[in-house]
């Protein structure tokens, strides 16, 4: 008689789901400043001014935290930023 194997289901740790996660965009010398600004406006819904501020932060400081909140949404934003060829990562925000 055939037996069913127990599927290997991985679940996210509850502490991961409860934590605040940040989306970080990293500098790269190839992406155009105007293009990065456009992507911030499109993906994150930023105003032109806010998008330019974050773009300049990426350019001058090497990285900018562009969003923070739930892990699922952070993963979605990182995926969308990657689809526009930006270097983006998510990281757990430090606990206060």
């Amino acid at each position, binding site marked *: 008689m055939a037996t069913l194997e127990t599927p290997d289901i991985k679940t996210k740790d509850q502490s991961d789901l409860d934590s605040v996660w940040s989306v970080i965009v990293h500098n790269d010398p190839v992406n155009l400043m105007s293009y990065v600004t456009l992507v911030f406006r499109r993906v994150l819904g930023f105003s032109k001014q806010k998008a330019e501020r974050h773009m300049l932060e990426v350019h001058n400081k090497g990285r900018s935290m562009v969003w923070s909140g739930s892990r699922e949404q952070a993963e979605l934003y990182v995926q969308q930023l*990657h*689809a526009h060829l930006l270097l*983006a990562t998510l990281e757990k925000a430090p606990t206060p």
Partner: protein
Amino acid sequence: MLTIQILPNGSILFDQVGDPLFEILCSIREPVESGDPLVESRLFPQPSENADEDDLLDDWKALVEPDLHDSFLAARESVAADLRGAQENSDGSYHFTIPRSHLDNWLSALNQARLALAEIHQFTEAELSRAPDDLSDPRELALMRMGVYGTLQEWLVSVVE
């Protein structure tokens, strides 16, 4: 002389495109599809810098990267189709149209090509802001191509904004 015109329906007509520029545009796919592992790493970066996030990294590779791969390929194919529709003028130059609905594909394909060329030739930030020199040198030619793609991309950003 190259002329670019935004048509009433939002499409963009490129006319009097000379042979060298047309060739550079037609080779937009080549650096991305070179199979260079550095290009792969840049086009498909990891979603976390934390090595402990192995579940996320595994899921990303299995679930997200294939979608990104398809989307990047579709953009390049859309650009190639627009260029296949180019027609030769009596003076040997070309004209072609980018439909409004293809502008995002052009933005993506141009960006993919620039990122790929930068990885293949390992250009430094300083090199990226200098003019290319002897174009018989493949590296200098790549720098020139990056400049052409960048100029067009910058202009297309201003159009879609």
